Each structure stands twice: as structure tokens, then as C-alpha cells.
């Protein structure tokens, strides 16, 4: 947290030229993998994320099975080459925690009672990382679940807001994340507005928190529209006979 060396905010513009309430560029493509039941490729600023869904299938090991409902296994994983200093392959404490909160967020919207004893496995691979990978990952997972035909109440979507130089802004970029004052990633169910995931670090006043939450929810709705477009695009192209 060092906000003296880099000027993050100047003349109403952020370091990458965005307005305070502007998202980075987002591109979503549904159904990009052959083997997976459902998949999604997502670019969010400099983040590149791919998500794949397998299942519902028998939960293994068997002691993890729930006789009344399905379990959701999200696995967030960063590629060794996705960050500046090579990351050692395999799960660490950070990725385990992110996997857990994403699993829980997804369980909220999936109709789990339909698949007793099953697991729905959601694999999220971060190929290129640049702040906000958990939001990008969860958003991609939402699209991949739809692509896999998993029955859900809603398509979950995530977005973060934060604070840089005492100003609340939407969707922190890399330097803003490193040198900013606070980060607030959330996931919501856009139809009902329920909050499925919420984490915060840094320092926010109550007022700033209200502002940030409001902004993050707005961001979620924008991203949600992009998600839905990606899904309709895939099925429209099938209808038009342009894909095999």
C-alpha cells in the first residue's frame, strides 16, 4: 500500500485512461473446448481465463457425496506462466481459498437437489493474470455452466470495485490493485440482486463501502449482459449453420 510513488488518478482519469466507473475491456466466448461439457474463454483487461465444466457425474471420492444434493467442485488454478515471476505449479493457500468461495457462490444458483450424490466440476484456469482474476474466473464459470446445460436459477456474475487515492472506482487494474487503498470483489445473482461472494481488503469508510458496493453491482449488471450475449451468440451461430 504505497500511494505516493505512482499517481493513480489525474484530471478525472485513471492510470490506464479509464473513467472512475468504467470497466476494462471484456470479451467472452462460450463453448471453446471439445472435451468439456461446457466451456468459456474470457478476456478481461489483461486477464485471460478459461473455464470448463464436467458433470453432473458421480462424486469421487465417495465420502464427499451428499445423498440429498450435488456438490460443486470449483478449482481455480493459475498457470505457471501467468504472472511476472513464475508461479510454482499446483494449488497454494490462495488458490484453495478462491476455489472454495467460488464453489460456494456457484452452489447458490445451481439446482443441486436434481443431482443427488453427483459432483459438478468447474475448472478455472488463469492463463494470463492482471488483477481481478477471481471475478474473471467466476464470470467465465457462469457461462461455462450454462453452456454445459446445468440447471440454474440465474447466471452468476462477478465484478470488483475499489478505492484509489480516496476515490471509489470500478474494476481495479494492475497498478491500482498494487498501490490502491481497497479492493472489493463481489459476485451476484443479477436477477434477484443477491450477493453470492463478497471479499474486501484495505480500508473503506462506511460511506465509501456503500458507494463501492453500489458501483460493483452496477459493474456486475454490465458484465452480465456480455455473458448473455456470448451465450446467445453461440447458439445463434449454430442455428444459422455457420458452425459444424
Amino acid at each position, binding site marked *: 500500500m504505497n500511494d505516493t510513488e505512482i499517481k493513480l488518478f489525474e484530471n478525472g482519469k485513471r492510470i490506464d485512461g479509464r473513467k472512475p466507473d468504467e470497466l476494462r475491456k471484456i470479451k467472452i466466448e462460450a463453448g471453446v473446448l471439445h472435451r468439456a461439457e461446457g466451456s468459456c474463454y474470457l478476456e478481461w483487461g489483461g486477464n485471460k481465463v478459461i473455464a470448463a465444466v*464436467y458433470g453432473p457425474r458421480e462424486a469421487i471420492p465417495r465420502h464427499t457425496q451428499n445423498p440429498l444434493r450435488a456438490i460443486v467442485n470449483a478449482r481455480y488454478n493459475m498457470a505457471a506462466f501467468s504472472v511476472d515471476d*513464475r508461479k510454482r505449479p499446483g494449488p497454494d493457500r490462495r488458490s484453495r481459498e478462491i476455489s472454495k468461495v467460488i464453489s460456494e457462490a456457484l452452489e447458490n444458483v445451481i439446482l443441486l437437489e436434481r443431482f443427488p450424490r453427483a459432483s459438478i466440476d468447474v475448472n478455472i484456469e488463469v492463463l494470463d493474470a492482471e488483477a481481478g482474476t477471481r471475478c474473471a474466473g467466476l464470470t467465465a464459470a457462469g457461462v461455462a455452466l450454462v453452456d454445459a446445460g446445468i440447471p440454474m436459477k440465474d447466471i452468476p456474475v462477478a465484478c470488483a470495485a475499489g478505492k484509489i487515492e480516496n476515490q471509489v472506482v470500478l474494476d481495479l487494474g494492475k497498478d491500482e490493485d498494487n498501490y490502491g487503498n481497497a479492493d472489493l470483489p463481489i459476485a451476484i445473482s443479477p436477477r434477484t440482486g443477491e450477493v453470492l461472494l463478497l471479499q474486501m481488503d484495505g480500508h473503506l469508510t462506511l460511506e465509501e463501502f456503500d458507494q463501492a458496493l453500489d458501483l460493483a453491482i452496477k459493474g456486475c449488471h454490465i458484465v452480465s449482459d456480455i455473458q448473455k450475449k456470448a451465450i446467445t451468440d453461440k447458439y445463434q451461430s449454430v442455428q444459422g449453420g455457420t458452425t459444424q
Partner: protein
Amino acid sequence: MTITPSIKKEYLVNLAENGKRSDGRKFDEFRKISIETGVISKAEGSARVKIGNTQVISGIKMDIGEPYPDSPESGVMTTAAELIPLASPDFEAGPPREDAIELARVVDRGIRESELIEVDKLCIEPGEKVWMVFIDIHILDFDGNLFDAASLASLAALLTTNVPAERFDLGENYPLPLKEPPISCTSVKYNGVVVMDPSLDEEEIAEARLTVATDINGHLRAMQKGLNGSFSVDEIKKVIKASIDNGRKIQEQLYKSVGK
């Protein structure tokens, strides 16, 4: 063998008796290959390779470290492959297992033994500081023939790698010093026929497998036989010939895609 492959086996064997494969290819024909480089901005070099439906990303990271005591003036390279559960319903999370280790080692050997990377040019201070090259292979979609896809992706990534000297205050970035890349071509045998670039269905019923790496002059650089079946000497010679022919074409495509 699980149930599905044994049902498919009959189908594939019947086709093969009429000189056909399930996707209409000739026995010695590769699937469509696509090579895309510079796909990861955080990596020093990267490439996404598709062979049919099989999809692999290879990323190169570089760092400075200590050389091995027995080669104090050589850079260090390591290769790791991850068969992540994203790529197939049969891959599990966790530390790399046998097949991931074999894959990484076969790719590693192809690059190391062909002396593709000029490790003697990667020394900064003899015995103290050398460049370390990390090759990380991520399988994204598994439809057979990971050996060739992983090695081709790694070659394309290495060919586009820039040594990040600026990041360590060692002057300007420069391209990784490389020699000619060897191209690997894999064939498998089932029920007496040998086919090049096996799809997953073919791989699952394969009795024997042979990977041949050839260089630009059509010379052999590395070979690896796998599985418990056998090849006749005649079959091996045929496989080598087909590997040289396919290797040439792939080499051309590789150079074109990296702009050389």
C-alpha cells in the same frame, strides 16, 4: 480397457480394414494444425497449438539462478506439463502423475538432446549466475497425441521467446539463442495398421506407439517407443519415412507462424 473404447475398437478396426480412419484421414496424414504465438502477455514466449481438437498452451518464463556444479557455464532448462482436469473428464487434480511426467520428459528430451537452446550462451557469471528457462505446458483440450502438440507448442513458444534482460538490469532484451528445432511425429499401431497423429479414440485402442523427432535435414534426433505392443522393422522404417515427410511440412508451418 473400459467399455466405450472396446466398442469403438470394432468400428475403427473395420474401417481400417477398408483403408479408412474415422475422420476420413489417410493413415499417414496429420489432422489440421494451427499455431498461434504471443498468446500470453506475462510470459517471455508463448504459443497455443491445436492439432485437430487437441489444444495445448506452452509458456516460457525466465529467471536468473545458480548453474549446476557440473556445468557452471551453462544455462538451466526445466520442463513441466500439467494434465489439468479442464482438458478431459479423466484428468484429476493433484501433483503430476506418471503420464504427465512422461509427457514432460519426452518434450524435455527432444529440446535438450537436440541442443535447441544454446545453453552455453545463457551464462551471466560462470558458476554463479545463469539464465534459467522454464517451459510450462498446459493441456487445455485432450483429443489424442499430446506428445506432438506439447512439443510443437513448446518449440513455437521458444522461437518467440525474448530473454528479459531489462527486467534484471542486464541490458536490452534479446531473442533466446536457438538452433534448428526438431519436429516430433507420433504414430500408433492397432490391429496391424499403423496410423500417424492418433486421435483419442485411436490412442485408446493402440497397442504400440512410436514418436520420431526429425530435424530440417531429415535426420533423426530422438525416438521413443511406448506401450506393450511391438513393431516390425519394416513398420518402423515406414513410420520414420512418414515422420520425415510430415516433419518437413510442420517445420515449414512452424517457421511461417513465428515469422522466420
